[in-house]
């Protein structure tokens, strides 16, 4: 690896760590600003002495600075605290729910890429035609339709009226179909729009005319020369969108009663289980930072100009 590459990765890593520290600090602050957790745990009838005892047990009576450094130390040692609601380690709870979310995000993003990329390429290669207009309309609709509403419509049609697919829960591949389709809609639209824009720009480059002039087949020119050069922003948005969805597709998991991280986050918020909310936010921030780093590494590998 070249010294310049090491320097670039190093500086990127430093900026990502700074972003991570800000995200962790925000998670800590939000946990303390969202109300008194002792009310949620002990109920409104508890005495002040009982509340003080619980605060002491949770370490909430310590100065904020001490709490903050304890919290950071816990993260560094892999201890994300214990849930107030489930009486289990937050890492265990996240590890139990993560496979469900991973399954859903993988299926949703795969669908989004498989539909969004060809749709964007089609629009860019047939710019100004009705193919372009149709693809752009589909993309615009995908970004405008509320996910919550779209999920309910799919349930009403395919589960309630037609009875083809289950309305909720998990377990079989059939259970995955409707949540994955719902999840794919927004990123699909985003990927399609970005692919169109990036491809349009690349198709106007002189090396595309040059490739055509040399007698290369249209398909090869589009995929081997244009798409290869246009794919970096697309790849970036795919990875970042995956990060966003991994840290909690709350609405989708709620509509389909999908037992993933989104559902867990919702339960934690409803119960004011601030250690769990905090742990989920930490997990999301870590995932996001790692995926950002992955984008940079892919960029370095794929683009010879960055190597």
């Amino acid at each position, binding site marked *: 690896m070249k010294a310049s590459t090491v320097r670039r990765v190093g500086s990127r890593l430093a900026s990502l760590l700074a972003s991570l520290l800000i995200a962790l600090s925000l998670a800590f602050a939000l946990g303390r600003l969202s109300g008194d957790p002792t009310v949620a745990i002990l109920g409104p009838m508890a005495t002040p002495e009982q509340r003080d005892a619980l605060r002491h047990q949770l370490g909430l009576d310590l100065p904020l600075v001490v709490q903050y450094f304890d919290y950071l130390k816990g993260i560094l040692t892999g201890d994300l605290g214990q849930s107030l609601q489930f009486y289990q380690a937050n890492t265990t709870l996240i590890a139990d729910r993560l496979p469900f979310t991973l399954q859903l995000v993988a299926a949703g993003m795969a669908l989004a890429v498989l539909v969004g990329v060809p749709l964007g390429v089609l629009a860019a290669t047939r710019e100004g035609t009705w193919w372009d207009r149709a693809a752009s309309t589909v993309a615009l609709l995908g970004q405008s339709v509320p996910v919550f509403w779209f999920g309910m419509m799919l349930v009403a049609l395919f589960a309630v009226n037609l009875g083809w697919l289950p309305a909720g829960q998990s377990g079989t591949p059939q259970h995955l179909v409707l949540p994955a389709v719902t999840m794919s809609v927004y990123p699909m639209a985003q990927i399609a729009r970005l692919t169109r824009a990036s491809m349009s720009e690349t198709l106007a480059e002189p090396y595309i005319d040059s490739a055509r*002039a040399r*007698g290369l087949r249209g398909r090869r020119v589009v995929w081997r020369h244009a798409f290869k050069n246009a794919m970096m922003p697309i790849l970036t948005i795919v990875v970042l969108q995956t990060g966003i969805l991994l840290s909690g597709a709350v609405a989708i998991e709620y509509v389909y009663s999908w037992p993933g991280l989104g559902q867990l986050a919702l339960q934690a918020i409803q119960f004011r289980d601030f250690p769990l909310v905090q742990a989920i936010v930490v997990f999301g921030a870590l995932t996001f930072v790692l995926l950002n780093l992955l984008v940079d590494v892919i960029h370095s590998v794929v683009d010879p100009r960055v190597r």
Partner: protein
Amino acid sequence: MTGAAQTGVSGEPARHPRTPDTDTAVLVVDDLVVEHRDRSTGTVLRAVDHVSLRIGAGESVAVVGESGSGKTTLAMAATGLGTRGDGAIRLLGHQLSSISRTRLRRLRPEVQVVFQDPHGSLDPRQSVRSGLRELRRLQPERTSWTSDTELLDRVRLAPQILDRYPHQLSGGQAQRVCIARALLMRPRLIVADEPTSGLDVSVQADVLALLAQIRQSTGTALLMISHDLAVVRSVCDTVYVMYQGRVVESGPCEAVFVNPRNDYTRELLAAMPGARWRSRR
């Protein structure tokens, strides 16, 4: 190249007389009109206005004129890469108006284009070796006549260039790579669209000498597009001078240089670097 009628800017457009040996020509353009429509305003701009031109096998022809005179539009239309317009274009014996897309694609290796921007013409993610390999896969029989290193040697490039990417090449090296790729296909016609405009003066001379040498050694016909009369004089036998989409003067290069008949040609010659010095001499 047979002589073409010469006219003034405001006179009748230059028309190329139909000749009986049309079939041996690599390119015949007859009465071509190309118009561009501005989508937003709906206005129509006539970029090429009743132009006729002929390039025989092994001939070297230049089209010169200022920016916007329609010379590149003419070259792109004539090679089937741009808007074809109205009029007859016969490329390597095929009428472009009736040729299928597949047939035209198969014809492309025989007509190679060297573009103005050498860096822009090379895929930024493709090494020189990979670019040549792609052409060899496309046309295995046509390209088997030489190895990569021999080919680079012909365009005066070292074999170390093979593993470089476009951003690692100088302008002159990139243009030589473009010429090498054109040469690899053993074309019958090379269209060079302002091949030296973005290069340093010393590199320009090298690239021009290379094109002239290739033409002599391979017998490939050359259509050179340029705004610079000095550039075409050293390489081409025949010149067409274009102004506002029309050919205002054409003829053997030396004749046009020594005895220009059209005012616009005189202006172009006067604008050549060193023109005053030459006229004082």
